[in-house]
Every structure is written in C-alpha cells, then in structure tokens.
C-alpha cells in the first residue's frame, strides 16, 4: 500500500513536470521587432513609435497576451535612418531574435531597402511612419509589407486638394528633399495637381544637412509661386523656414508630415508659427475611448502632461493601432508563422475599434495601407505645439 502510494507520487510528479514544461513552452513570449531611428535628427520619431508599441503591448499583455497566454515582448534596434544598417537589422531581428513581425520607422529609404528581406524571410512588416508609395505598392505577391501610416500617393492627393479647395492656391512651388521620399512625392504631387489642370511653377530640391535653401526659394518666388509645398524632415525643414524668413517671403506653406519628427519647434522658434501640415491623428480635441486611454498611459508612463506635449504624435498613434492589428492577426492565425500571419492580416475578421478609426477588413491582398486620405487631418504649428485645423 505504501509502495503504491509512493509510485503514485512519482507518477504524479512526472505528469506534473511534463505539464510544466508544456506550459512553459506555450508561455514563451512572442517577440515583436522595431527597426527605427532612435538616435539622430529624427530620434523623436523612434521614441514616439516605441511608446505607441509599448502601450499597446502592455495593454494586450495585461489581458493575457496572445495565442492563449503568450506575452508580447518588444525588441528595439536603431537603424539610424541608414538603409544598409536597416537591412542588417532586419536579418538580425528575424534570424537571431526570431521576431514574429517587425515594425518600421520614419525613413522611406530604410523601409524600401528592407522590403526584399521581409519577402525572402517571409516575415510580416508593419510600417508606422515611412510614407513612400512604393513601400507597400512594391509589386510583390504575396506582399509581406503592411502599413498603418500615410501613403505618399494619398498624402499628395490630400495636400493638393487642400491647396486648391481650402487655400484657393493655383501656383504651387514644390520644395523636396533629394531622396527617394522626395521623388515619391514629386510623382504624386504632379499627378494630383495635374488632375485639376494645375502645374507646379517650379520643383526645387535640397540635400540632407544643407544649411541654406535661399537659392531654391528665390527661384520658386521668381517663378511666381503663391504656395510652397514642402517635403522635408525636421533639420532641413528648419533651414527652409530660416531661409524663407531671410528672403522676407510670406507665401503660405503646407507640408508633408516629416517636420513633425525631430526638434522642429526648437530649431525654428517663432518661424514655425502657422506652418500647416498633415497628420494621421491628433491627440487634440475630443478623444475616443482609445485616445483617452493612450493619453492616460502617456501621462502615467512618460510624463506627458497635455496633448501638446506628445512628441511626434503620429508615430505613437500609428504604432499603437498597428500593433493591435498584428496581435489580432496572430490570434486569428493561431500561430506566429509568417505566411499565416500575413494571410490573417489580409483577411481580418470582425472589426477593431482603434485609436485612429474603426478598422473593418483594413487590408486585402491588393490594399496594404490601412489608412487613406479620408483618415488624414490637417494641423498647424502654434506656439511650438501642433494644433488641429477644423476642416471645412
């Protein structure tokens, strides 16, 4: 009898032990990668994306994680806005860290360089910022590149309509950075202005770290531009404003969203006043439930006191919604297997009441941008803060 009970104990121990390892295995965290510039002139963008992801991850983990109890874990790598570095990081995240999906940062140049890596390794990529049209429209099937962010093509349609309908301007001068991102917008702006019979009076370019944009601005001014359409990141955007003030030129200026990234307000001071640009989301005004939650988390975790203190808001908002969509897809796929998650993303069931909007079947095999120009908002720099403009 005693012997029997001892055998029973041993048996119980073995069974429990085995169950323990199985449980531990299933509880292994699901890693999510981030490749973004967390240093350099655009460091604020990387920080904002990181915050959005972390808030969503903590929220999901608080409710038990994904796949019936596995926690999400964020792995961050600094790509410094450098395409070569981006490619190295992409491989490292997948091959060494075994991430289930990777989120991207601000630079279109990096995002484009990474596309072949995701395709080759079959890992879903979720863009949270870089807006280059051909990042998602990359001609690949099946396509592993998704995005919850702006797409230059939609941005250019949005900006050109804002210029013509709201501002009633008909002589735009384009001022673009001399990169694939600038190129992507030259194509889009020419197309969408052209659709209404408007032609840019001039197209000027500048390089990264150029100190003075007066010659370009002067040529646009002499060409009779009544509106500057700017595609630039914060450091160059700041020099454009300085040069513009130097010329004493008070033409209106609308901008793609790159200037919300770095220390634009610090670099420009008063000059940023009145510069209008586009966002996918603003934390100003009435917030939905998610908005209130994210703001509360930003306050509790990162000491953000009011909406105007949210750095690079689009990064946080896009990343937050993007992560929720990926988590839903992982649950729907029942696995972290790349092809299965990609398929789930393209066929998301039900709806996700997100921060930016309610997503109903956001991606299809053809459409890999969850947001379009119907979801964008126009904002303006006022007193060093981003303030929304009420549309129409």
């Amino acid at each position, binding site marked *: 009898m005693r012997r029997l009970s001892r055998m029973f104990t041993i048996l119980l121990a073995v069974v429990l032990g085995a169950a323990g390892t199985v449980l531990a295995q299933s509880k292994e965290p699901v890693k999510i990668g981030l490749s973004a510039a967390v*240093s350099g002139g655009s*460091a604020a963008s990387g920080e904002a994306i990181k915050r959005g992801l972390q808030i969503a991850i903590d929220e999901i983990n608080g409710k038990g994680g994904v796949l019936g109890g596995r926690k999400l874990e964020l792995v961050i790598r600094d790509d410094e806005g450098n395409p070569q570095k981006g490619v190295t990081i992409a491989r490292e995240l997948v091959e060494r860290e075994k991430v289930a999906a990777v989120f991207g940062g601000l630079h279109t140049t990096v995002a484009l360089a990474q596309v072949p890596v995701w395709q080759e390794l079959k890992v879903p990529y979720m863009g949270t910022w870089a807006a280059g049209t051909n990042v998602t429209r990359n001609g690949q099937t099946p396509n592993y590149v998704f995005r919850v962010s702006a797409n230059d093509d939609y941005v250019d349609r949005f900006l050109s309509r804002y210029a013509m309908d709201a501002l009633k301007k008909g002589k735009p001068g384009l001022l673009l950075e001399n990169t694939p991102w600038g190129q992507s917008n030259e194509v889009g702006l020419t197309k969408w202005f052209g659709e209404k019979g408007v032609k840019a009076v001039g197209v000027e370019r500048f390089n990264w770290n*150029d100190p003075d944009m007066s010659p370009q601005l002067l040529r646009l001014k002499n060409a009779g531009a009544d509106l500057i359409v700017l595609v630039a990141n914060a450091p160059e955007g700041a020099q454009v404003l300085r040069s513009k003030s130097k*010329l004493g030129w008070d033409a209106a200026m609308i901008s793609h969203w790159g200037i919300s990234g770095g*220390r634009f307000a*610090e670099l420009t001071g008063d000059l940023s006043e009145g510069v209008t640009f586009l966002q996918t989301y603003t934390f100003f005004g009435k917030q939905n439930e998610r908005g209130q939650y994210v703001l509360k988390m930003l306050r509790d975790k990162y000491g953000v006191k009011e909406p105007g203190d949210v750095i690079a808001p689009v990064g946080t908002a896009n990343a937050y919604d993007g992560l929720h969509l990926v988590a839903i897809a992982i649950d729907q796929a029942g696995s972290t297997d790349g092809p299965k998650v990609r398929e789930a993303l393209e066929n998301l069931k039900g709806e996700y009441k997100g921060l930016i909007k309610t997503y109903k079947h956001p991606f299809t095999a053809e459409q890999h941008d969850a947001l379009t120009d119907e979801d964008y908002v126009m904002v303006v720099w006022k007193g060093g803060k981003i303030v929304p403009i009420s549309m129409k």
Partner: protein
Amino acid sequence: MYGLVALGYHITWATSRTMNFSQGHAVMVGAVVAYAVFVGLGWPFPLALVLTLVALAGFGALVERVAVRPFFLRASPAWLLATIAVGIIAENVAQLTFGKDARAFPSPLMRKPIILGSAGFYPQELLVPVVGLLLMGLVQLFYHRTAYGKQLKAVAWNPEAAGLMGINIPRAVMASYALSALLAGVAGVLLAPLLNVSPQMGTIIGLKAFAVAIIGGLSSAPGIVVAGLGYGLVESFTAGYVSTRAREIVGFGLVILVLVVRPWGLLGEKPSRRV
C-alpha cells in the same frame, strides 16, 4: 567663412610643413563645447566663449602631441592619417556625449533678418566675415610684428638654424596647432547659430576649407583670405543661377583646376625648382 578655418591649415603648414586634417572637426568641437557651456550649463556667453577658446587651444595642442609630433620628428607623412583619425574620434566622442541630434544655438543676431530688396540676411551672417577678417588681420600682425611670431616663421624657413638659435621647435609647432584649432573654434561658435550644432557639422566645413587653402595657396595667408571670400561667392552664384546640385561640382572642380594650372595656389609662392 571658410577662410578662417582655411587659415588654420596655413598656420601649421607655415611652421611645420604639416597640417591638421581634423580642422573641420575642431570647428565642431568649438560649437559643441560652446553649446554645452552656454546652453547646457547656462553660463554667460563671454565666459562660455573664453572656456571654448581655452578648450580648443588645448585640443590643438593635444592633436599636435599625439598625432603629429611622433611622425614629424621622424619626417614621416603619417601625421596625415593620424590627424584624420583624431577628427573621426572627436566626431564619435561628440556623438556619444552630445547625442546625434542637431540642436539650436540661440543668438540675438538670429532673431530678425535684415531684408534688402528681394534678398536678406541675418546679422549673424554678417558677423562671420567681419570677425573672420579681423582675426586674420590679428594673425598677420602676430606673425610680422611680434618676436614670437617671427620665431614661428623662422622655424618654417629653416628648422635647423632656428633650433640652433635657441628656438624650441616642438613648442613652436605645438603653439601653431593650438592657434589653428583656436581659430577653428571661433569659427565653430560663429557658425553654430546658423548651421545648428551637431557632431556631423565639421566634416564638410573642413573639406571646403582645405579646398580654399589649396586654391589660395597654403603658404600665403592673404591668398587664403581672398580664396575664402571668392569660394563663398562662387558657391552662392552657382546655387543661385545654375542649380544647388551643381554647387559642389563647381567648387571642387575649381580645386582641381587650380592644382593643374597653379599647384602653389593663387597667391602662393612658386617653389624654386630643386634639382
């Protein structure tokens, strides 16, 4: 604006026939140190300026001691690589301590531009050439009117004779490096409000200043001053009337042209042919 930095190449060349290729990075160090003291610690500007200049003179002396003297004494041209290495180290140290972000350097001369007709400028932009020319004049006075300046020149003419005359040659070379870095530091402080402060700001300035030094003639201070002004004018005319993208092409094309036609520079002395 390049003239002041380019003059630094001339100063060390004139005493020791060596050059500090981290001259551009010295500009950056000047801007970063000034930013750290003036904006970071919030000390008054004159104090920040003095501290920056002292730090830069120290930087120059250090470059000479570590990267030039060991090779200079052996008449080895390795100082060339060694000074470039110092520059790269300086840039990376700045990235680690200062961060990679460009930061704004406040200046009362940047608040409002002066507008003349269809063009304009910030008072700060005027200050750069004014201070630059003033300093260049002072350097010339120092070389031609003071005993120590004359000693430095003597070292350049004939190191052996100068040594025999009781001039401490290593110290003279070190002094010339300190002086050249100090000028770069002044340039850094002057340029900081215009270009913003960042660890990467020095590289292109150093290159262009070197171009100016070559065009003007390494051995001729007046030549460098003229070339500095000329180079700036050519740059802005190219950018204004041709294209911004042609600016660097024209500028550095000029350097090659000068090297082919007048290798000793516009106002440099033609070296006597040695057989």
